[in-house]
């Protein structure tokens, strides 16, 4: 049971949960963040303030607390809705909490990026007869992506490590797994988890650097 290869394979297996949570959060929170960004820039003020209030609440409370509220909230409030029972339910609840939390952070980065594009770019598109949608997707978006890549990279790297918070609602991610050994008096698996995160973040750093280089062909 305490063989090194067995421990490593169990750590690796539990790290896959971190990876899954990471990937799902990114896939859904990036587009959701864009929608929230548009909401927070809406010229219809009720929407704008509603969205900004929501972002304030999400950014203003710990992700750990949000995980607990989202997972236990429906049951405690006796809502009709409830999470599926067991491992699945815990994972889905964690994913939802992560997506909402990260979407809010991304939305502020997007908003900053979009607002930093000079008005002249919009006007050039307008006088060339483009629609608002065409201007956004054909002219603005890529310039925004180039500008926000460094701060988005920061968030993405933070997300890798935040996935460990999922253990608060009993998702068996890598730190929780290592903790089981710590409780039995074996400390090295906990230290070993650091290597998993380091390697993952290392690969991400390379990828982000490559992307930045890819977008280096033009200047905004």
């Amino acid at each position, binding site marked *: 049971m305490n063989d090194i290869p067995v421990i490593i394979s169990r750590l690796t297996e539990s790290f896959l949960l971190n990876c899954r949570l990471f990937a799902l959060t990114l896939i859904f929170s990036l587009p959701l963040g864009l929608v929230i960004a548009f909401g927070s820039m809406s010229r219809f003020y009720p929407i704008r303030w509603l969205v900004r209030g929501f972002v304030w609440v999400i950014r203003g409370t710990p992700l750990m607390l949000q995980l607990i509220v989202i997972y236990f909230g429906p049951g405690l409030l006796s809502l009709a809705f409830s999470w599926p029972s067991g491992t699945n339910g815990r994972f889905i609840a964690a994913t939802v909490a992560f997506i909402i939390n990260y979407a809010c952070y991304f939305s502020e980065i997007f908003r900053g990026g979009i607002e930093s594009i000079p008005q002249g770019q919009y006007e*050039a598109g307008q006088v060339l007869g*483009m629609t608002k949608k065409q201007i956004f997707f054909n002219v603005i978006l890529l310039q925004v992506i180039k500008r926000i890549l460094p701060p988005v990279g920061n968030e993405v790297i933070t997300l890798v490590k935040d996935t460990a918070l999922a253990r608060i609602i009993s998702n068996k991610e890598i730190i929780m797994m290592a903790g089981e050994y710590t409780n039995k008096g074996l400390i090295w698996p906990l230290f070993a988890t650091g290597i998993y995160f380091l390697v993952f973040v290392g690969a991400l750093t390379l990828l982000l650097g490559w992307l930045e280089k890819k977008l280096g062909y033009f*200047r905004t």
Partner: protein
Amino acid sequence: MPILEVRDIEKNFGTLKVLENISFSLEKGETLAIIGSSGSGKTTLLRCLNFLEKPDKGSIIVNDEVIFDAMDPTTQRESEVRKKRLHFGLVFQNFNLFPQYTVLKNVTLALELLAKERPDYKQNKKVILEEIQEKAKYLLSQVGLSDKLDYYPHMISGGQQQRVAIARALALEPDILCFDEPTSALDPELTGEVLKVIRGLAERNTTMIIVTHEMDFARDVSDRVIFMDDGVIVEQGPPEEVFGNPKEERTKQFLTRYNQK
């Protein structure tokens, strides 16, 4: 029949009156130069023509069609404004090229997007896109940039960027091409090459409105001159008159200051 008629345009920014009683007309093939000191409303006037600002009063008529009337909301519908804009082209002071696209793509982009709205686009996609490429290449050769097609905007000089912007505006074949101080962001060395291109357009009877601080150029190239001050047209007429024999005191003062430089 004038190609453009501007009637009684007025524009306020809050309580600040930027344009008042602006009326003039332009014949097809004419070049109109608008001069005046900074803050006199020249740029705002161009922006009104291009629907980048909405006048508070007045109307704009192109080819006998009322394309804007402050009193008539039906002329201001968002969906139609986009098409109406195409009567005008605008070359900006600071070029506003799209940095992520090559010189060629900067010129073709709007045409490609417009072509997508054509009913026969799907069937003839290849031919249509090829035509657009050819047209853009031709226009870029006209402004002397055939060797820069694959360059990105940051790789070429300001003068070259402005010439790309001119080709980009020409690509949509506007009835009236507007220039908003096209050489103000350029050093004197690069100013010449841009002015040469504009002069060429004037010789080929392109209908143009040029807001400029280049007095010698305005005098040379224009068929008519408008002098603006404080949001009103102080004087308008042929360049020989406005420059050679100004009637208004304010015009004289302005031109004297320029001649001293």
